[in-house]
């Protein structure tokens, strides 16, 4: 029996692999010309063999599905990366990130200042912990953090989930899991997708427009072809899902879950600089800033160059669409850290918000378990996967990959439970 999978991001590809492994026929339809969804790599615009991660970059400690995949397939990772040290005190928390490199008001902050800021945040976390939903900014005001501490703490929303601190709940920042110990891929992140896609029937450049039920089967219409399949797994971003027609109409609870899940709005600013060793020493491995580039991290690239990759939430200032201005912001942060004006030899800006088949960076998970369950639940033969439906590591690559395997299992379980027809009677 055949399953049609909408989207060749990690969710779609991992779903397809699992189904194919169990002897199912699978066709994956991808709207863009790329494999990997929001894990796209750019190998053309930087020099000396440098590659840019246009979307997701990190595998964090605990993202074992993807780490296991890299192990099995010999996919090389970067040296281990710790964006900030442990502390203040004996563990990691939402304050730890302030101990890493920090630029405030265009100036590098020394260790003493960072320790004081992190200490202030840590004390407040201890004496008046945030609720799960409380936003970073609301908590900072409630506990009366000093202005620099409040700003530095709220800035991390611009890194994860690349959004405004006023709309980001503290569970994104606390207990400081993201960036504490992680790896990037030695090549770009989409190596996972391209490796996992081997042997699969993936059709690029085929945006799915309508999915309709015809008897017990489903008809999938793309701009190019019509397919009839037994089951469907929809793995697109929530915004892209809202742009596909369904016949019959999706049930009200599903539509409410889709409309109740905003995506963070923003993109990525990437630039390659000369004097890589000096910049690495001054700003590596990563730096948090209060500029429109909330956070950037470095990768050593050939000929003593370094590639900086930064996140930029859309705050309405238009910088994401003004590429020279966006890259200049990144230059200034590097300069603040290194003390010299860096020589940029390449730059890329990727605005995920204006990408027709994505619409944002990641799902915001604002509805808790209940809404995530509604996003993930199947409707007949229509199954749903993707980072927004992830039970663990939602909004991350790991959540996407695991959700794809979960959706595949739903279909496999259904196959196993099909009635056995005894034709001999």
């Amino acid at each position, binding site marked *: 029996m055949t399953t049609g999978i909408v989207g060749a991001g990690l969710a779609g590809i991992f779903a397809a692999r699992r189904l194919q492994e169990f002897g199912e026929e699978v066709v994956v339809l991808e709207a863009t010309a790329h494999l990997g969804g929001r894990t796209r790599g750019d190998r053309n615009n930087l020099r000396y063999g440098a590659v840019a991660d246009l979307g997701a970059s990190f595998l964090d400690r605990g993202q074992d599905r993807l780490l296991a995949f890299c192990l099995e397939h010999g996919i090389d990772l970067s040296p281990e990366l710790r964006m900030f040290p442990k502390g203040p005190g004996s563990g990691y928390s939402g304050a730890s990130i302030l101990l890493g490199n920090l630029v405030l008001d265009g100036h590098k902050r020394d260790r003493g200042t960072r320790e004081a800021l992190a200490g202030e945040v840590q004390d407040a976390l201890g004496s008046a912990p945030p609720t799960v939903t409380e936003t970073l900014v609301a908590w900072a005001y409630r506990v009366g953090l000093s202005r620099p501490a409040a700003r530095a703490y709220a800035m991390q929303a611009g890194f994860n989930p690349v959004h405004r601190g006023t709309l980001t709940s503290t569970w994104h920042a606390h207990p400081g899991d993201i960036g504490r110990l992680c790896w990037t891929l030695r090549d770009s992140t989409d190596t996972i997708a391209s490796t996992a896609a081997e042997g699969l029937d993936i059709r690029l450049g085929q945006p799915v427009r309508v999915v309709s039920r015809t008897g017990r089967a489903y008809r999938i219409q793309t701009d190019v072809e019509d397919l009839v399949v037994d089951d469907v797994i929809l793995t697109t971003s929530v915004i892209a899902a809202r742009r*596909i027609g369904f016949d019959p109409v999706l049930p009200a609870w599903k*539509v409410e879950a889709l409309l109740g899940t905003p995506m963070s709005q923003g993109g990525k600013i990437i630039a390659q600089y000369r004097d890589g060793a000096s910049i690495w020493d001054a700003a590596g491995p990563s730096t948090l800033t209060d500029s429109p580039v909330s956070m950037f991290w470095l990768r050593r690239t050939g000929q003593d160059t370094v590639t900086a990759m930064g996140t930029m939430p859309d705050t*309405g200032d238009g910088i994401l669409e003004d590429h020279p201005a966006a890259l200049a912001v990144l230059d200034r942060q590097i300069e603040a850290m290194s003390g010299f004006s860096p020589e940029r030899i390449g730059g890329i800006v990727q605005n995920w918000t204006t990408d027709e088949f994505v619409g944002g960076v990641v799902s915001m998970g604002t509805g808790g378990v209940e809404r995530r369950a509604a996003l993930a639940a199947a409707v007949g033969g229509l199954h749903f996967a993707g980072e927004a439906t992830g039970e663990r590591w939602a909004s991350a690559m790991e959540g996407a990959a695991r959700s794809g395997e979960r959706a595949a299992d739903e279909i496999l379980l259904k196959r196993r439970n099909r009635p056995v027809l005894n034709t001999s009677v």
Partner: protein
Amino acid sequence: MFKAERGSPVRRFLEDAPVIVLGAGLAGLTAARQIQKAGKDVIVLEASDDVGGRTLTSRVGWRDNQYANLGGELIDRSYHAVHRLCAELDIDLGAPQAYSRHAPEDNSPIEGFLRATRFIVDGHLLTAEEAEHAAAELRAAVTASPPAAHEIVEQWIRRAQVSSVVAAVVRSLARFFTQLDPWDCDVHFVFGASSGVFQRVRGGTQEVAVAMARDLDVRCGHRVVRVERGRTVRVTTDGGVEFVGSRAICAVGPFVLTSIGFDPPLDDAKVRTATSLLPAMAGKVIAQYEQGDLVREAFRSLVCTDGPINSAWVSVEEPAGSPAIVTAFFAGMGRFHMSAPEEAFGLLDQVVGQVTGQAVHRLHGEIKNWWADPLHLGVTVAPPEGGRQAIAGILSAIEDRTHFAGDYTDAPMSGTLEGAVRSGLRAAQEVLREMDVYDSHFITERLSKP
């Protein structure tokens, strides 16, 4: 003031502090006005330097003393609370403009818009015949694939497989009504009842707020950052100024509600609901043109496009011979153009030129990007039909001496001027319904028998 009542040495009520209203938009001011009318003290704290919230009027820089509405302006016949408020305040509404002409045989309001509103699709201004043709196709599509009550606009467009012209018409109307992209709102905004006939406040929408604020204690430039809620409500501003009140009415915009440090924190359900609203990432680009008569004649109705400009219109009646001001919505994916002013004005010049059939001369322009404004972070909400009651119910729920007003707390009229006024009336009622808290000594003295 109750301390010495009937010779009692004990005060009657525990507190005599004012009600504190956060936000001097229509909701906050309406609430404050009602509370003051009932004889209670009320203080309104406003973060910006002017009252009106998302109903500001721009008056500077326009030739011939003209003005422009930077925010909310459309007043439908069904906006009863707004009509009543304007009457009470002696504020005039302008002559109605019809963007739609219904016919009895219509099976969707969009057909009415296709008769009155002009549509630019793929750079081409639809002729009357083309609009009629689109209406016929739409009628057939609605009959063949009736939109489900909860269906997303874009999902219906895809399911019904309408032509690119009809798709553009439906998408642009969805954006006009919600300032959201058509994949972020449901069909009731375009297929639900809508008169398509609108009035505006003479002198600009902000007149309503200004008139209400005149008799109220409004303190501008006080952005509230913390609200401590115990037996009283203690409000702290970003400048460190404290106000103590008996109760608070939070009447700030929907996307800054979650930036205030409430203590105890806002209920989880309220935060989840507020952060789940899809913000209308939108604003207005407004320009004044010298060829006023020509522009007014061409813009007797609304103009909708499928380009970065969602819609454009002339909203203010001006004497013949004077310039004309054209207002345009930029929303959703089209919002980025607002940050490149020359490009945005150029796009508007082009649309105005196309509709008037002549090159026009721009005298002045202004851009108000509500999505970029740190005091608003979005222009409006457009919750789905099925979720409205629950969303508004949770957002308006009273907690810890705090009441909640704002258009987004009103289920039927969420996202409108009417919703703001109604929510203010409702919050005032809540406050006035609350019992005063008696000092227990007073009760003992009066009622306890030995």
